[in-house]
């Protein structure tokens, strides 16, 4: 140690460093209010955006999968499937599913950052702040949803390349649906991340949840005429209720034969009842909300 005396005075050390000895203006931290909670939500949200914009590699890599599905798999399989699609481009058919995939993966990675935050200690900084845990969780979910929705917008820009028209109404509807999905998936991820402290376990768990969810959802096949076991699993899968309304919106803007419409866009049914778009959207919103509440409860309980 450079300091050998046992009781050195602060003044001499400040002088020795040549630092100015001016008084630091104190600030007062106000008591908790709605305004301070909103500030907390906003700053946690903003942090997600800053981090996302820094991570260009992530933006690129998370677009990789949708591109592969859409242009490689879609183009390749369309030769096989042309008989069954009644002249509709297979890529147009899988487009809603691929969009959902881009959103899901980005939302999942956003939620995963919570596990990193815990591992790298940053979570502690947030947990000791004089704000409600619910504000932190809300900020995180909004942030993840925003980032995922942005990723969705990039895929949305590609619509024209696969025969989906750029109709303002259609784009708006798809956008609204993907924002909803982004929020629900982030809430799901945050709920899982609340209990998991290791990245490997989180990733393994998410893979286990996301892949079956994706394959069962009808993102890659029409949901009518399925074997019963698959039909049941498909109706249980929450993602079904995000993919189906998107596809319905896309097909509403296509000029195709009635046979093609029946084969490719049969719509989800519950015991023969054709589930309307609004109900489907409500299912996704409700699930997202429930998971958000669970996540909040878990974080509020944590010490």
């Amino acid at each position: 140690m450079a300091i050998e005396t046992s009781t050195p005075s602060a003044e001499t050390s400040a002088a020795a460093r040549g630092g100015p000895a001016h008084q630091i203006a104190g600030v007062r931290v106000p008591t908790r209010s709605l305004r301070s909670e909103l500030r907390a939500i906003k700053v946690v949200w903003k942090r997600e955006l800053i981090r996302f914009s820094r991570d260009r590699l992530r933006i690129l890599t998370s677009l990789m999968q949708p591109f592969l599905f859409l242009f490689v798999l879609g183009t390749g399989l369309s030769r096989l499937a042309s008989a069954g699609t009644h002249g509709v481009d297979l890529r147009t058919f899988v487009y809603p599913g691929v969009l959902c995939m881009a959103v899901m993966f980005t939302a999942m990675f956003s939620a995963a950052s919570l596990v990193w935050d815990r591992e790298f200690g940053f979570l502690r900084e947030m947990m000791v702040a004089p704000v409600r845990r619910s504000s932190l969780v809300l900020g995180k979910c909004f942030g993840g949803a925003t980032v995922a929705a942005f990723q969705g917008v990039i895929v949305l820009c590609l619509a024209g390349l696969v025969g989906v028209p750029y109709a303002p109404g259609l784009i708006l509807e798809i956008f609204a649906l993907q924002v909803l999905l982004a929020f629900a998936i982030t809430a799901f991820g945050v709920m899982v991340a609340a209990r998991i402290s290791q990245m490997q376990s989180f990733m393994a768990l998410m893979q286990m949840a996301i892949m079956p969810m994706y394959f069962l959802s009808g993102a890659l096949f029409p949901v009518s005429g399925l074997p019963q076991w698959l039909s049941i699993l498909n109706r249980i899968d929450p993602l079904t209720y995000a993919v189906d309304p998107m596809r319905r919106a896309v097909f509403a803007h296509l000029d195709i034969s009635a046979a093609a419409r029946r084969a490719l866009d049969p719509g989800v049914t519950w015991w023969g009842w054709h589930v309307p778009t609004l109900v489907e959207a409500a299912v996704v919103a409700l699930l997202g909300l429930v998971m958000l509440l669970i996540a909040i409860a878990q974080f509020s309980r944590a010490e």
Partner: protein
Amino acid sequence: MSSPAPAVSVNGLLKSFGEVEAVRGIDFEVGAGEIFGFLGPNGAGKSTTINMLCTLMRPSGGSARVAGHDVVRERDGVRRNIGLVFQDTTLDGYLTAEQNLRLHAELYGVPREAVGERLRQVMEMVGLWQRRKSLVNTFSGGMKRRLEIARGLLHSPRVLFLDEPTVGLDPQTRSSIWSYIRELKSREDITIFLTTHYMDEAEYCERIAIMDQGLIIVLDTPEALKASVGKDRVQIQTDDDAAAIAALSERFGIEATVAEGEVTFGVPEGEHFVPRLFAELGQPIRSVSVARPSLDDVFMSYTGTTIRDAESSQLDTRRNFARMMNR
């Protein structure tokens, strides 16, 4: 210490994790404006105590008030009034230094008009103003620690908790961290509460509590603690150590041993003893050295072991456990 409202007051505080009692009922007070240190080996219960005071852990028993607020019933009141610097970094490496601090200001609701000015002051104080636009990932360990201190101060806390603020840093950085801490005290109306297992750092505190195995063993100023050991250490070199030891025992009634190749013994007020030693020992003395008791000696006299030995024996069991709990 004579302040009417203590910054921290603790009564019978307990924390157990299942079978293990990490903190076994401690009482103490820290006066406003004091630099107060917790000294003890790893696993002594220092971090657990700090975590309870910072509302990060619920006590199993007892009570504690920080800045006038109860740590269980008035968590928010405590949180608004404390700054924290943890052992492990809690910065976001993907944000710049300034973004980390601004995020903190928002979380703590620092008035918008005050943020800019305050930010500049705390960053200048730790010498990082020039680096404010750099990503924290590019910072060295010492810079990160300094930034954390600046962040801990951003909302003008009444009590700043520093958990092992210099652990893992090189000696030069350690000493600069200490100069910030002491400068801070001269500038701000703040109480500083820290833990350390470095003896030399405990010397900078106004009062220290020595903690071992979940209990406070003794609490006093470093000077008083050293005085309580009572004896200075005297070492002499002679031509005939055995004869010198015999003479010491015979003429002064002092038990001496050979340590580090020299005849070593403890006496009160060593300097005053030296003239008598030369006059009355009757053996030629080649050299003599007198050392004041160090906190090492203090730790030794209260716990019967040196802090290093205490650490190596506890390290495996308790540290792993503490790490598990601190997740």
